[in-house]
């Protein structure tokens, strides 16, 4: 890592650490939510940006972890940390099953297959009333006592988010991550070069699902509530939109996308009930003016300037 980059990361972390001091109360909890969804968006970016497979099932993987944490802690009265562990395991298991089915396809077929798989999870959560609470979902505070304070929760999420971001960054920039990029660019060539494309896709998908699971488990701490809408298609789409608006294939774009979308949702809705219209217009303009996303556009501009 160049010193310049290191400086940037330290500055960003320092800035983020100031949030609870500068924006106490509600806006801290908003920032907490942004951090959680940033992780989800980044996990989606591993597939959408680096592997060239756009998934529509990560909301479901994310939500499975949330469900498991809430069920384990509120219904079975277990410890929250064991709950998080089980939640992440369950989400990873779901990701493994999805991966086995989905890696055979690419392009629009991959999109549709993952959409269908996600809908199955949604259907199960809606119908399996005795466990999931059906439409009404599961409720209950699962946060350990020392995280009850919103500022503490924020710092916890910041630390967790930073660790996961680092892990994901290492993953996509590792030699293995390069093979994923290779698959994105030319699957046939990778195969002729002797790479087991299916296996690489499978691992990429599972790792992506693992990170989505971690963010879902942490979401249970934040939200204290889960219902089928958490595993629904809208959730998957929102995560994907965050990745796209921030810039696919940039990883850190997820952070910007999450901050933009959640921020806009809340700021705009205070002024008009037509907030979804404003959000839609923003997506359209992003696609027209900066199809490579906010971060993608920025790095393109700086590259141009340097040249």
């Amino acid at each position, binding site marked *: 890592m160049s010193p310049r980059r290191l400086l940037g990361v330290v500055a960003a972390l320092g800035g983020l650490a100031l949030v609870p001091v500068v924006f*106490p*109360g*509600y*806006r801290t*909890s908003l920032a907490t*939510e942004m951090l959680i969804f940033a992780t989800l968006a980044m996990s989606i970016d591993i597939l959408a940006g680096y592997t060239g497979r756009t998934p529509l099932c990560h909301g479901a993987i994310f939500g499975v972890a949330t469900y498991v944490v809430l069920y384990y802690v509120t219904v079975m009265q277990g410890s929250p940390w064991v709950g998080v562990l089980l939640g992440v395991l369950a989400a990873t298991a779901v990701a493994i099953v999805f991966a086995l089915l989905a890696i055979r396809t690419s392009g629009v077929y991959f999109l549709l297959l993952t959409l269908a798989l996600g809908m199955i999870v949604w259907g199960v959560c809606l119908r399996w*009333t*005795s466990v999931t609470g*059906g*439409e*009404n*979902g599961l*409720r*209950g*505070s699962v946060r350990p006592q020392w995280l009850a304070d*919103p500022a503490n929760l924020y710092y916890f999420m910041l630390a967790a988010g930073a660790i996961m971001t680092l892990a994901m960054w290492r993953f996509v920039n590792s030699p293995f991550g390069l093979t994923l990029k290779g698959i994105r660019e030319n699957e046939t060539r990778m195969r002729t070069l002797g790479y087991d494309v299916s296996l690489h896709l499978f691992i990429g998908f599972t790792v992506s699902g693992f990170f989505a699971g971690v963010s879902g488990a942490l979401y249970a701490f934040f*939200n*204290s*509530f889960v*219902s089928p*809408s*958490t595993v629904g298609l*809208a959730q998957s789409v929102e995560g994907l939109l965050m990745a796209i608006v921030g810039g696919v294939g940039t990883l850190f774009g997820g952070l910007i996308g999450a901050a933009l979308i959640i921020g806009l949702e*809340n700021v705009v*809705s*205070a*002024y008009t*009930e037509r*907030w*979804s219209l404003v959000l839609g217009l923003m997506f359209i303009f992003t696609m027209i003016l900066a199809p490579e996303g906010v971060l993608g556009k920025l790095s393109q501009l700086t590259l141009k300037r340097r040249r």
Partner: protein
Amino acid sequence: MDRRSFIKAAGTTALASTGPWYLKSGLAQSGPIRIGLLAPLTGVVASGGREMVEAFNFFWDASGKKAGGRDIQVIVEDDASNPDTALQKARRLVEQSNAHFLIGDLLANTGLAVAEYVKGNGTPYFIPIIAADDLTQRSRIPNVVRIAGYSASQMPRPLADYAVKKKKYRKFVTVSQDYAFGHEQCGGFAQLATELGGTVVAQHWNPLSTQDFSPYLAQIQGAAPDAVFAMETGADANRFIQQWANFGMKGKIPLLGAMNATDQSVIRTLGAECEGIVSSAHFCEGDDTPVTRKFVNDYEKAFQKLPSLYGFSMYSGAMWLAEAINAVKGKVEDRAKFLDAVRRIELRNSPLGRPVRLDSYGNPIYDVYIREVKRRADGKFWNVPVEVYPKVSQFWTYQPEQYLKQPAYSRTYQGTKKG
């Protein structure tokens, strides 16, 4: 929220940050009373949500936006028919807009999500529309009160009593939307109907947004029951009633409806096919009581439509709040006193037409009307009273302690007595 109040809110937030965040709403004593109103203005039930806001503001506009000597400021937030959004907006109303209390939400899951949130911080939350039984039963929360609302299984019980005892129906089929609200309403009906000597020969559960009811209607015809109890809401109710008539079953098999099935939100777009459906509810827009008459006329003048469940519930809820605020002389910051005042109110002059008070579980005790859909002189359809069941609580005639021992109604548990 405009910019000025945003800055003000930010300022108070900054000031209050010296103390624990959840105590800060107790600091500002003067200034307006801020009511956080949550309603689904987008999403699947947006039309109902819109009417909630209209009716709530209708009351405050008429009363000069004042109560207990203080101004009333209503802050509306869209819950998008989504529990996660509802939760986020509730947080925003309490933590950023410093709302003194919350009211609203339409779908049970949005209300349950917000209830869980206020359980943690003690903000009073009022639910005139959310009917989920357990919010005032097995998992009640002291600061969540169902002013001018009802619990799902409460309303169909008088109808079951009426059907078995007065109409001498014995053999029933129920058809209901397949989710908690439907399970609970059907449970209330089925349990009492079987306890009184009736039998429920079949229960059909249709998924939400069913387009085609013909499979159910064919089975109902085959079963040839004395009467059918239908629990449908919104567009499903619309389609069910239309297809019921198209199948030629109207007039052949008596159709009983849950209150939502013949609510104005449904029948205002229907024609003669809805005539004659019998349902039970705590409000009857065609009742002749002067307060009801005046409310319905004013409402129709203001909005060119008859008030629905969303309209009259939110209006009565606002009235209830106004009386409680007057009772504590505007000091809503003292939450315990304010909630106590809310619980003590006996609402006498509301559009419901009859006095209402809360039971000790925070759910109203109503005089419930058995009502029938009739054509009004101008061709519109409305519900007119047939009979009144006085003082119906959410526990009917059961002992509360005894009743709460049975599980909550679900698709698998309907409380029906066999044989």
